[in-house]
């Protein structure tokens, strides 16, 4: 069968010594930042991106995605042991994971979450292998009008489904679209918003914005909250779960995996929303809701599976359609563009080694995480004693050097400083940076396709509603907007 041949190619690529090493490196690094509060996968990907430019495209993607799913895998460790989520997607793990640890059941909680993560991750990879090629072949038939509508749906879904307030999200998305227009207009050669500076003629590199609004702004915000408080870790006795734990967990793991796989596909939701949704699902289904919040293992198993399934399926829209479903995917997409690979329906057929290699490495990475994390829990907990004040200058310097080395441009570093301050202002104003970065990445795609579509239709806007796929997509967009408007009705904090 075709699938097996592809998988064989993929494992062939992923198992070369170099790529295997990068996978291990990515997964380990991801675990590290997943464990350390105050530095998340976004900051790390933004920080390490420039270093990957000299690697092969496959190797760099393997490493960067390892950081991403590794961080989601490991965030639960600190949530369980210390009641401190290592990354936002494991906030809900604290609710029941930490009480379990306090009752001396840290081992089973960690073990169940590792098993759940691995199962969910593997299932996500399987879904990706099965559904990406057909999805891409559908998308191959998309012309400019369909792409315009698709990007519109993605942008609208991002602002509707993302955390934060609807109006502010729209504003952030529009700001991102505007930032995306900076630089030379491809079709006319006009310099737009460059303020006569040659430094802006090629547009703003997305790394500058990413490092500014994610890494620098996060540093400032964490410092502003007085660093990060630490609590003493819960005791860790036996790792092995009891039979009753396994019996109680397998259904939540299956449900969490299904929910997370579906939500991971939607722009704007991703791992964090998935883990929250899975938690409330488990709570709804429980016979005795009073156990939740007091160490119910279902409250660990479900969300943890959902979070990791979503972390994998999150890649599917980006790899098959070129539509990033979240901020991290926007960064990955940017990384691929720098490497000269345009993610989209053609990628799977044009660069099969990249797609299948990445896919295989994701499964290998999940396997590594399963094998590595549990025995090394003690080591990861030790790392937490690393004070944040030492991390601050290290993160800052790595980011500066990273931004500088993209174009050897000091101007870029200055611009990143500006975006850092701006990003902090956004966080004070409670504006989410995610719609901004997605808008920034998708803005040029939207503009080009809209221009092309209208040129082909001789300026007739009807082209977007007469073509069935485009119409369907636009109806989806209108439904999303209607739903958002409904939930914003007076009396609620929209």
């Amino acid at each position, binding site marked *: 069968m075709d699938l097996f041949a592809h998988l064989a190619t993929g494992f062939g690529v992923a198992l070369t010594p170099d790529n295997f090493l990068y996978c291990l490196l990515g997964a380990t690094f991801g675990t590290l930042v997943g464990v350390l509060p105050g530095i998340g996968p976004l900051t790390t990907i933004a920080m390490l991106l420039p270093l990957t430019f000299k690697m092969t495209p496959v190797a760099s993607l393997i490493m960067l995605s390892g950081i991403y799913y590794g961080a989601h895998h490991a965030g639960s460790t600190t949530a369980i042991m210390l009641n401190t989520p290592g990354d936002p997607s494991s906030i809900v793990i604290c609710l029941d994971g930490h009480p379990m640890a306090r009752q001396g059941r840290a081992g089973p909680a960690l073990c169940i979450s590792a098993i759940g993560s691995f199962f969910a991750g593997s299932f996500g990879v399987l879904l990706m292998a099965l559904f990406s090629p057909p999805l891409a072949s559908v998308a191959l038939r998309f012309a400019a009008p369909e792409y315009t509508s698709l990007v519109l749906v993605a942008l609208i879904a991002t602002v509707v489904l993302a955390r934060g307030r609807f*109006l502010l999200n*729209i504003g952030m998305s*529009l700001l991102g679209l505007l930032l995306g227009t900076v630089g030379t207009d491809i079709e006319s050669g006009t310099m737009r918003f460059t303020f006569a500076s040659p430094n802006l003629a090629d547009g703003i590199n997305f790394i500058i914005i990413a490092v500014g609004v994610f890494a620098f702004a996060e*540093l400032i915000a964490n410092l502003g909250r007085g660093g990060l408080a630490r609590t003493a870790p819960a005791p860790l006795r036996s790792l092995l779960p009891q039979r009753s734990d396994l019996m109680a967990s397998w259904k939540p793991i299956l449900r969490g995996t299904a929910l997370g796989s579906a939500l991971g596909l939607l722009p704007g939701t991703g791992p964090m929303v998935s883990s929250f949704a899975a938690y409330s699902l488990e709570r709804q289904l429980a016979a005795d809701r009073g156990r939740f919040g007091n160490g119910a293992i279902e409250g660990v198993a479900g969300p943890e599976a959902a979070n990791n399934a979503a972390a994998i399926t999150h890649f599917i829209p980006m790899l098959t359609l070129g539509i990033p479903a979240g901020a991290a995917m926007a960064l990955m997409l940017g990384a691929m563009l720098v490497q000269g690979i345009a993610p989209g329906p053609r990628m799977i057929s044009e660069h099969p080694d990249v797609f299948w290699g990445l896919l295989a490495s994701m499964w290998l990475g999940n396997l590594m995480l399963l094998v590595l994390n549990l025995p090394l829990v003690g080591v990861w907990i030790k790392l937490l004693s690393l004070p944040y004040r030492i991390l601050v*200058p290290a993160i800052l310097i790595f980011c500066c*050097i990273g931004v500088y080395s993209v174009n050897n441009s000091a101007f870029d*570093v200055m611009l990143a400083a500006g975006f*850092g301050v701006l990003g902090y202002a956004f966080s004070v104003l409670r504006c989410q940076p995610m719609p901004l970065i997605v808008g920034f990445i998708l803005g040029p795609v939207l503009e080009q396709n809209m221009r092309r579509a209208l040129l082909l239709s001789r300026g007739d806007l009807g082209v977007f509603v007469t073509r069935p796929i485009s119409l369907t997509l636009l109806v989806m967009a209108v439904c999303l907007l209607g739903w958002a408007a409904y939930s914003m009705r007076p009396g609620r904090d929209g």
Partner: protein
Amino acid sequence: MKPVIRDSGGFVAGLLFLSVGLGAIGIASGYRVGSALHMGPGYFPVVVGVLLVLVGAASVVRALSVTVVGGERVALRPVLVIGAAVAVFALSIDRIGLVPTVFISALLACMAGSKPAVLESCVIAAVLSVMAAGIFHYGLKLPFSLF
């Protein structure tokens, strides 16, 4: 009744969107805007600018009627110090080379916390300078001059 700002975050964000939108319309209408058939370079930015103005205005109006409790206090020291540390990096990297730049910038970054220890900060800055030179100059062979 005098309007009261009930949601200062939404109000300021709205003003920001409003002014950026107006600015974008102002600048982009200087480019050829064109028609839907032949969109000029100004078309898309003007449309986005108009939407941004609308969203900004809506956000400002909403901030007068919907109360949002809480909000973050602005942490002035970290903003200024982190901003300055990055700016110093930008200003000195082409002039005095990697090692001194990293040292000064890292030292400054150490000062962003509430109670910086001078000796510890110097040690951290020195270690980072050596690491940066080792990783980026000798390891990855990026074109940095060391001094």
